[in-house]
Protein backbone atom coordinates (compact mmCIF):
# COMPACT_ATOMS: atom_id res chain seq x y z
CA UNK A 1 0.00 0.00 0.00
CA UNK A 2 1.30 3.51 -0.82
CA UNK A 3 1.94 5.92 2.07
CA UNK A 4 -0.81 8.17 0.78
CA UNK A 5 -3.30 5.31 0.81
CA UNK A 6 -2.29 4.30 4.32
CA UNK A 7 -2.90 7.84 5.50
CA UNK A 8 -6.38 7.80 4.00
CA UNK A 9 -7.27 4.43 5.53
CA UNK A 10 -6.08 5.58 8.96
CA UNK A 11 -7.65 9.03 8.69
CA UNK A 12 -11.02 7.63 7.64
CA UNK A 13 -11.12 5.12 10.45
CA UNK A 14 -10.10 7.61 13.16
CA UNK A 15 -12.75 10.01 11.87
CA UNK A 16 -15.39 7.41 12.80
CA UNK A 17 -14.48 8.09 16.44
CA UNK A 18 -15.59 11.73 16.22
CA UNK A 19 -18.80 12.63 18.01
CA UNK A 20 -20.99 15.60 17.23
CA UNK A 21 -19.82 18.60 19.23
CA UNK A 22 -16.39 17.19 20.08
CA UNK A 23 -13.45 19.52 20.67
CA UNK A 24 -10.55 17.85 18.91
CA UNK A 25 -6.81 18.35 18.64
CA UNK A 26 -5.08 16.75 15.67
CA UNK A 27 -1.33 16.39 15.92
CA UNK A 28 1.14 17.28 13.23
CA UNK A 29 1.44 15.12 10.11
CA UNK A 30 -0.64 11.98 9.65
CA UNK A 31 -3.42 12.88 12.12
CA UNK A 32 -4.36 15.97 10.09
CA UNK A 33 -5.77 13.57 7.50
CA UNK A 34 -8.66 12.94 9.90
CA UNK A 35 -10.11 16.38 9.12
CA UNK A 36 -10.77 15.26 5.54
CA UNK A 37 -13.13 12.46 6.57
CA UNK A 38 -15.55 13.91 9.12
CA UNK A 39 -18.77 11.83 9.02
CA UNK A 40 -21.87 13.55 7.72
CA UNK A 41 -23.99 15.22 10.38
CA UNK A 42 -21.06 15.49 12.74
CA UNK A 43 -19.72 18.94 13.60
CA UNK A 44 -16.47 19.07 15.52
CA UNK A 45 -14.23 21.96 16.60
CA UNK A 46 -10.54 21.69 15.86
CA UNK A 47 -8.09 23.29 18.26
CA UNK A 48 -4.57 24.15 17.31
CA UNK A 49 -2.47 24.57 20.42
CA UNK A 50 -0.68 27.71 19.29
CA UNK A 51 -3.97 29.48 19.97
CA UNK A 52 -7.16 28.83 18.00
CA UNK A 53 -10.39 26.94 18.52
CA UNK A 54 -12.27 26.48 15.28
CA UNK A 55 -9.42 25.90 12.85
CA UNK A 56 -10.69 25.46 9.30
CA UNK A 57 -9.17 23.83 6.21
CA UNK A 58 -6.05 25.12 4.45
CA UNK A 59 -6.68 28.30 2.42
CA UNK A 60 -6.67 28.29 -1.34
CA UNK A 61 -3.40 29.34 -2.92
CA UNK A 62 -2.83 33.05 -2.63
CA UNK A 63 -5.33 33.41 0.21
CA UNK A 64 -2.88 32.55 2.97
CA UNK A 65 -2.75 34.85 6.00
CA UNK A 66 0.78 35.04 7.41
CA UNK A 67 -0.60 35.33 10.95
CA UNK A 68 -2.91 32.33 10.75
CA UNK A 69 -1.10 29.01 11.15
CA UNK A 70 -1.59 25.74 12.99
CA UNK A 71 0.76 23.97 15.38
CA UNK A 72 2.57 22.40 12.46
CA UNK A 73 3.28 25.77 10.90
CA UNK A 74 0.86 25.21 8.03
CA UNK A 75 -1.50 27.92 6.84
CA UNK A 76 -5.09 27.41 7.94
CA UNK A 77 -8.38 29.28 7.92
CA UNK A 78 -10.75 30.03 10.79
CA UNK A 79 -14.38 28.90 10.78
CA UNK A 80 -17.23 31.26 11.66
CA UNK A 81 -17.40 31.18 15.43
CA UNK A 82 -13.68 30.51 15.90
CA UNK A 83 -11.75 32.13 18.74
CA UNK A 84 -8.11 33.10 19.24
CA UNK A 85 -6.33 32.94 22.57
CA UNK A 86 -2.80 32.89 23.93
CA UNK A 87 -0.88 29.62 24.05
CA UNK A 88 -0.99 29.48 27.84
CA UNK A 89 -4.81 29.42 27.82
CA UNK A 90 -4.60 26.94 24.95
CA UNK A 91 -2.68 24.52 27.18
CA UNK A 92 -5.01 25.23 30.09
CA UNK A 93 -7.76 23.95 27.79
CA UNK A 94 -5.67 20.88 26.99
CA UNK A 95 -4.29 20.02 30.44
CA UNK A 96 -7.57 20.93 32.12
CA UNK A 97 -9.47 18.12 30.40
CA UNK A 98 -11.51 20.30 28.07
CA UNK A 99 -10.42 18.55 24.86
CA UNK A 100 -12.56 15.51 24.05
CA UNK A 101 -10.15 13.83 21.71
CA UNK A 102 -6.50 14.10 20.75
CA UNK A 103 -5.08 12.22 17.78
CA UNK A 104 -1.29 11.91 17.69
CA UNK A 105 1.29 10.19 15.60
CA UNK A 106 3.85 8.02 17.38
CA UNK A 107 7.21 6.33 16.92
CA UNK A 108 6.13 3.50 19.22
CA UNK A 109 3.13 2.41 21.28
CA UNK A 110 3.14 -0.46 23.73
CA UNK A 111 0.92 -3.04 25.41
CA UNK A 112 0.57 -0.82 28.48
CA UNK A 113 -0.83 1.95 26.33
CA UNK A 114 2.27 4.08 26.62
CA UNK A 115 3.63 5.93 23.63
CA UNK A 116 6.88 7.50 22.49
CA UNK A 117 6.80 10.25 19.92
CA UNK A 118 9.33 12.98 20.57
CA UNK A 119 12.90 11.77 20.32
CA UNK A 120 15.27 9.06 19.14
CA UNK A 121 18.35 9.38 21.36
CA UNK A 122 21.50 10.14 19.42
CA UNK A 123 19.57 10.58 16.22
CA UNK A 124 16.66 12.97 16.27
CA UNK A 125 15.52 15.28 19.06
CA UNK A 126 12.82 17.61 17.77
CA UNK A 127 11.44 18.15 21.28
CA UNK A 128 8.10 17.25 22.81
CA UNK A 129 6.32 20.46 21.82
CA UNK A 130 2.79 20.12 23.15
CA UNK A 131 2.58 16.32 22.94
CA UNK A 132 3.16 15.58 26.64
CA UNK A 133 0.41 17.98 27.70
CA UNK A 134 -1.97 16.62 25.06
CA UNK A 135 -1.54 13.01 26.14
CA UNK A 136 -1.73 13.97 29.81
CA UNK A 137 -4.79 16.18 29.60
CA UNK A 138 -7.10 15.00 26.83
CA UNK A 139 -10.16 12.95 27.72
CA UNK A 140 -9.40 10.44 24.97
CA UNK A 141 -6.15 9.85 23.12
CA UNK A 142 -5.84 7.99 19.83
CA UNK A 143 -2.50 7.06 18.35
CA UNK A 144 -2.73 7.18 14.56
CA UNK A 145 0.33 5.71 12.89
CA UNK A 146 1.60 3.24 10.37
CA UNK A 147 1.73 -0.26 11.76
CA UNK A 148 5.42 -0.75 10.98
CA UNK A 149 8.41 1.53 10.48
CA UNK A 150 10.23 1.93 7.17
CA UNK A 151 12.28 -1.18 7.79
CA UNK A 152 9.13 -3.20 8.39
CA UNK A 153 9.56 -3.46 12.15
CA UNK A 154 6.47 -3.37 14.34
CA UNK A 155 5.83 -0.02 16.04
CA UNK A 156 3.51 -1.74 18.52
CA UNK A 157 5.73 -3.28 21.18
CA UNK A 158 5.56 -4.99 24.54
CA UNK A 159 7.40 -2.03 25.98
CA UNK A 160 8.40 1.23 24.32
CA UNK A 161 12.20 1.45 24.03
CA UNK A 162 12.27 5.16 23.21
CA UNK A 163 11.78 7.96 25.78
CA UNK A 164 8.11 8.13 26.77
CA UNK A 165 5.75 11.00 26.03
CA UNK A 166 3.60 10.44 29.11
CA UNK A 167 2.86 7.77 31.64
CA UNK A 168 -0.83 8.19 30.86
CA UNK A 169 -2.44 5.59 28.68
CA UNK A 170 -3.62 6.09 25.15
CA UNK A 171 -7.09 4.71 24.55
CA UNK A 172 -6.92 3.46 20.98
CA UNK A 173 -4.30 2.66 18.35
CA UNK A 174 -5.34 2.97 14.72
CA UNK A 175 -3.05 1.83 11.92
CA UNK A 176 -3.61 1.03 8.26
CA UNK A 177 -3.98 -2.62 9.32
CA UNK A 178 -5.78 -2.67 12.65
CA UNK A 179 -7.78 -0.96 15.37
CA UNK A 180 -6.44 -1.89 18.78
CA UNK A 181 -8.00 -0.83 22.06
CA UNK A 182 -5.88 -0.39 25.15
CA UNK A 183 -7.63 -2.26 27.98
CA UNK A 184 -6.60 -2.97 31.52
CA UNK A 185 -5.83 -6.52 30.38
CA UNK A 186 -3.66 -5.44 27.49
CA UNK A 187 -4.05 -4.67 23.79
CA UNK A 188 -7.35 -5.82 22.34
CA UNK A 189 -7.45 -6.30 18.57
CA UNK A 190 -10.96 -5.23 17.59
CA UNK A 191 -10.85 -4.49 13.90
CA UNK A 192 -8.74 -5.50 10.94
CA UNK A 193 -8.40 -3.52 7.73
CA UNK A 194 -9.83 -4.98 4.55
CA UNK A 195 -7.15 -6.95 2.73
CA UNK A 196 -5.62 -8.22 5.97
CA UNK A 197 -6.42 -11.17 8.22
CA UNK A 198 -6.17 -11.44 11.98
CA UNK A 199 -3.12 -13.64 11.45
CA UNK A 200 -1.51 -10.94 9.23
CA UNK A 201 -1.91 -8.42 12.04
CA UNK A 202 -0.59 -10.80 14.71
CA UNK A 203 2.45 -11.64 12.63
CA UNK A 204 3.42 -7.99 12.05
CA UNK A 205 2.84 -6.96 15.67
CA UNK A 206 5.54 -7.44 18.30
CA UNK A 207 3.21 -6.80 21.23
CA UNK A 208 0.99 -9.54 22.56
CA UNK A 209 -2.57 -9.06 21.27
CA UNK A 210 -5.84 -10.19 22.78
CA UNK A 211 -8.15 -11.10 19.91
CA UNK A 212 -11.71 -9.87 20.15
CA UNK A 213 -14.43 -12.46 19.72
CA UNK A 214 -16.18 -10.12 17.30
CA UNK A 215 -13.52 -8.90 14.92
CA UNK A 216 -14.92 -6.52 12.34
CA UNK A 217 -13.32 -5.21 9.17
CA UNK A 218 -12.86 -1.58 8.10
Amino acid at each position, binding site marked *: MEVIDKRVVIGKRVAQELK*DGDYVNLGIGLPTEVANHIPEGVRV*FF*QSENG*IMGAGPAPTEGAEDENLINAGGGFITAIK*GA*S*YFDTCLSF*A*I*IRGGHIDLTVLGALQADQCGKLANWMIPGKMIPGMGGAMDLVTGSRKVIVAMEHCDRRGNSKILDNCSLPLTAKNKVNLIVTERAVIEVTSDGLLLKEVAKGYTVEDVISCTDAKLIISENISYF
Partner: protein
Amino acid sequence: MVKIISAKEAASLIKSGESIMFGGFLAVGSAETIIEELKELGTSDLEMIVIATDYEDKGVGILVSNKQVSSIKTSHIGTNKATQNQMNNNEIKVDLIPQGTLLEQIRSAGAGLGGVLTPTGLGTVVAEGKQVIEVDGKEFLLEKPISADFALIRAKKADKYGNLVYDKTARNSNPIMATAAKITIAEVDEIVEAGEIPAEDVVTPGVFVDYLVLKK
Protein backbone atom coordinates in the same frame (compact mmCIF):
# COMPACT_ATOMS: atom_id res chain seq x y z
CA MET B 1 -21.83 21.55 22.13
CA VAL B 2 -23.59 24.33 23.95
CA LYS B 3 -27.36 24.13 24.55
CA ILE B 4 -29.74 27.02 25.11
CA ILE B 5 -32.07 26.46 28.07
CA SER B 6 -34.30 28.55 30.32
CA ALA B 7 -33.21 29.95 33.68
CA LYS B 8 -35.64 27.57 35.38
CA GLU B 9 -34.16 24.57 33.55
CA ALA B 10 -30.68 25.74 34.48
CA ALA B 11 -31.56 26.04 38.16
CA SER B 12 -33.22 22.61 38.05
CA LEU B 13 -29.96 20.98 37.00
CA ILE B 14 -28.52 21.80 40.41
CA LYS B 15 -29.30 19.45 43.30
CA SER B 16 -29.24 20.23 47.00
CA GLY B 17 -25.78 19.73 48.47
CA GLU B 18 -23.93 20.47 45.27
CA SER B 19 -21.15 23.04 44.86
CA ILE B 20 -21.50 26.15 42.75
CA MET B 21 -19.03 28.82 41.66
CA PHE B 22 -20.78 32.11 41.21
CA GLY B 23 -19.16 34.65 38.92
CA GLY B 24 -19.67 38.27 39.85
CA PHE B 25 -18.45 40.75 42.43
CA LEU B 26 -20.71 42.84 44.65
CA ALA B 27 -23.66 41.82 42.49
CA VAL B 28 -22.01 43.11 39.30
CA GLY B 29 -21.63 40.38 36.69
CA SER B 30 -23.88 37.91 38.52
CA ALA B 31 -26.20 35.35 36.93
CA GLU B 32 -29.20 37.16 38.47
CA THR B 33 -31.96 35.33 36.67
CA ILE B 34 -30.65 31.88 37.54
CA ILE B 35 -30.05 32.97 41.15
CA GLU B 36 -33.70 34.06 41.34
CA GLU B 37 -34.82 30.67 40.03
CA LEU B 38 -32.60 28.89 42.56
CA LYS B 39 -34.29 30.92 45.27
CA GLU B 40 -37.67 29.97 43.83
CA LEU B 41 -36.75 26.27 43.81
CA GLY B 42 -35.35 26.41 47.32
CA THR B 43 -32.39 24.15 46.49
CA SER B 44 -30.60 23.85 49.80
CA ASP B 45 -27.31 22.98 51.47
CA LEU B 46 -25.35 24.58 48.66
CA GLU B 47 -21.58 24.95 48.72
CA MET B 48 -20.82 28.42 47.41
CA ILE B 49 -17.57 29.64 45.89
CA VAL B 50 -17.60 33.37 45.21
CA ILE B 51 -15.27 36.39 45.52
CA ALA B 52 -17.61 38.21 47.93
CA THR B 53 -21.06 37.42 49.31
CA ASP B 54 -22.51 40.62 47.83
CA TYR B 55 -25.51 42.17 49.60
CA GLU B 56 -28.34 40.66 51.62
CA ASP B 57 -30.84 41.36 48.85
CA LYS B 58 -28.61 41.36 45.77
CA GLY B 59 -26.33 38.93 43.96
CA VAL B 60 -25.49 35.67 45.72
CA GLY B 61 -26.51 37.28 49.02
CA ILE B 62 -30.11 36.41 48.13
CA LEU B 63 -29.34 32.71 48.54
CA VAL B 64 -27.47 33.30 51.80
CA SER B 65 -30.36 35.34 53.22
CA ASN B 66 -32.74 32.57 52.16
CA LYS B 67 -30.59 30.06 54.11
CA GLN B 68 -29.90 27.87 51.06
CA VAL B 69 -26.14 27.85 51.61
CA SER B 70 -24.22 25.63 54.02
CA SER B 71 -20.63 26.56 53.23
CA ILE B 72 -18.82 29.38 51.48
CA LYS B 73 -15.32 29.84 50.14
CA THR B 74 -14.85 33.58 49.66
CA SER B 75 -12.50 36.51 50.25
CA HIS B 76 -14.99 39.05 51.59
CA ILE B 77 -18.24 39.02 53.54
CA GLY B 78 -18.10 42.59 54.86
CA THR B 79 -20.99 43.84 52.72
CA ASN B 80 -23.42 41.13 53.78
CA LYS B 81 -24.56 40.98 57.40
CA ALA B 82 -26.54 37.78 56.76
CA THR B 83 -23.32 35.92 56.01
CA GLN B 84 -21.65 37.28 59.11
CA ASN B 85 -24.62 36.46 61.35
CA GLN B 86 -25.03 32.92 60.02
CA MET B 87 -21.28 32.40 60.40
CA ASN B 88 -21.35 33.61 64.00
CA ASN B 89 -24.34 31.33 64.71
CA ASN B 90 -22.52 28.37 63.13
CA GLU B 91 -25.30 27.97 60.59
CA ILE B 92 -22.82 28.34 57.78
CA LYS B 93 -19.16 27.44 57.38
CA VAL B 94 -17.07 30.25 55.90
CA ASP B 95 -13.51 29.83 54.59
CA LEU B 96 -11.94 33.24 54.11
CA ILE B 97 -9.31 33.10 51.37
CA PRO B 98 -7.15 35.92 49.97
CA GLN B 99 -8.79 37.00 46.73
CA GLY B 100 -5.76 36.45 44.51
CA THR B 101 -5.24 33.00 46.01
CA LEU B 102 -8.89 32.02 45.55
CA LEU B 103 -8.71 32.95 41.87
CA GLU B 104 -5.47 31.03 41.33
CA GLN B 105 -7.01 27.98 43.01
CA ILE B 106 -9.95 28.15 40.66
CA ARG B 107 -7.68 28.68 37.67
CA SER B 108 -5.59 25.67 38.76
CA ALA B 109 -8.66 23.44 38.66
CA GLY B 110 -9.62 24.70 35.22
CA ALA B 111 -6.09 24.38 33.88
CA GLY B 112 -5.43 20.85 35.15
CA LEU B 113 -2.79 21.94 37.65
CA GLY B 114 -2.29 20.42 41.09
CA GLY B 115 -2.05 23.85 42.64
CA VAL B 116 0.20 26.88 42.82
CA LEU B 117 2.81 28.28 45.19
CA THR B 118 1.98 31.77 46.42
CA PRO B 119 3.71 34.11 48.85
CA THR B 120 0.34 35.60 49.86
CA GLY B 121 -0.75 34.61 53.36
CA LEU B 122 2.68 33.57 54.65
CA GLY B 123 3.05 34.53 58.29
CA THR B 124 -0.73 35.01 58.72
CA VAL B 125 -3.60 32.81 59.87
CA VAL B 126 -4.10 31.89 56.22
CA ALA B 127 -0.95 29.76 56.41
CA GLU B 128 -2.26 27.59 59.23
CA GLY B 129 -2.33 23.91 58.31
CA LYS B 130 -0.87 24.52 54.87
CA GLN B 131 2.28 23.11 53.35
CA VAL B 132 5.15 25.63 53.05
CA ILE B 133 7.45 24.91 50.13
CA GLU B 134 10.83 26.53 49.58
CA VAL B 135 11.79 27.40 46.03
CA ASP B 136 15.25 28.84 45.45
CA GLY B 137 15.49 30.10 49.02
CA LYS B 138 12.06 31.73 49.17
CA GLU B 139 9.04 30.34 50.99
CA PHE B 140 5.61 29.86 49.46
CA LEU B 141 2.27 28.40 50.49
CA LEU B 142 0.96 25.47 48.50
CA GLU B 143 -2.61 26.27 47.53
CA LYS B 144 -4.70 23.48 46.06
CA PRO B 145 -7.19 23.60 43.18
CA ILE B 146 -10.83 24.51 43.82
CA SER B 147 -13.41 23.10 41.42
CA ALA B 148 -17.18 22.82 41.61
CA ASP B 149 -20.14 20.92 40.22
CA PHE B 150 -21.45 24.06 38.53
CA ALA B 151 -20.20 27.46 37.48
CA LEU B 152 -22.93 30.06 37.07
CA ILE B 153 -21.46 32.91 35.16
CA ARG B 154 -22.70 36.07 33.53
CA ALA B 155 -21.64 37.52 30.22
CA LYS B 156 -22.80 40.28 27.94
CA LYS B 157 -23.11 38.30 24.76
CA ALA B 158 -22.74 34.73 23.54
CA ASP B 159 -22.69 33.23 20.09
CA LYS B 160 -24.31 29.89 19.41
CA TYR B 161 -21.03 28.06 19.98
CA GLY B 162 -20.86 29.49 23.49
CA ASN B 163 -18.11 32.03 22.84
CA LEU B 164 -18.50 34.83 25.38
CA VAL B 165 -17.69 38.51 25.77
CA TYR B 166 -18.18 40.56 28.93
CA ASP B 167 -19.14 44.12 29.81
CA LYS B 168 -16.62 46.37 31.63
CA THR B 169 -15.91 45.34 35.23
CA ALA B 170 -18.76 42.81 35.06
CA ARG B 171 -16.08 40.52 33.61
CA ASN B 172 -14.39 40.01 37.02
CA SER B 173 -14.25 36.34 38.11
CA ASN B 174 -16.47 35.04 35.32
CA PRO B 175 -13.84 33.98 32.76
CA ILE B 176 -11.85 32.04 35.39
CA MET B 177 -14.84 30.30 36.96
CA ALA B 178 -16.07 29.34 33.48
CA THR B 179 -13.09 26.97 33.23
CA ALA B 180 -13.29 25.16 36.55
CA ALA B 181 -16.64 23.41 36.99
CA LYS B 182 -18.07 20.14 35.70
CA ILE B 183 -20.90 22.12 34.13
CA THR B 184 -20.71 25.79 33.16
CA ILE B 185 -23.88 27.78 32.62
CA ALA B 186 -23.65 31.30 31.25
CA GLU B 187 -26.47 33.81 31.64
CA VAL B 188 -26.20 36.36 28.85
CA ASP B 189 -27.97 39.50 27.67
CA GLU B 190 -27.91 38.39 24.06
CA ILE B 191 -27.27 35.31 21.91
CA VAL B 192 -26.01 35.88 18.37
CA GLU B 193 -25.08 33.67 15.42
CA ALA B 194 -21.66 32.02 15.24
CA GLY B 195 -19.25 34.45 13.62
CA GLU B 196 -20.94 37.59 14.92
CA ILE B 197 -18.41 37.90 17.72
CA PRO B 198 -15.03 38.53 16.06
CA ALA B 199 -12.63 35.67 16.87
CA GLU B 200 -10.10 38.17 18.30
CA ASP B 201 -12.64 39.54 20.78
CA VAL B 202 -13.75 36.27 22.37
CA VAL B 203 -12.77 36.24 26.05
CA THR B 204 -14.18 32.82 27.01
CA PRO B 205 -14.03 30.26 24.18
CA GLY B 206 -17.15 28.10 23.89
CA VAL B 207 -15.18 24.98 24.82
CA PHE B 208 -15.68 26.00 28.45
CA VAL B 209 -19.45 26.55 28.20
CA ASP B 210 -22.16 23.88 28.43
CA TYR B 211 -25.41 25.86 28.62
CA LEU B 212 -26.59 29.34 27.71
CA VAL B 213 -29.47 31.11 29.45
CA LEU B 214 -30.96 34.33 28.17
CA LYS B 215 -31.29 36.91 30.93
CA LYS B 216 -34.84 37.95 31.77
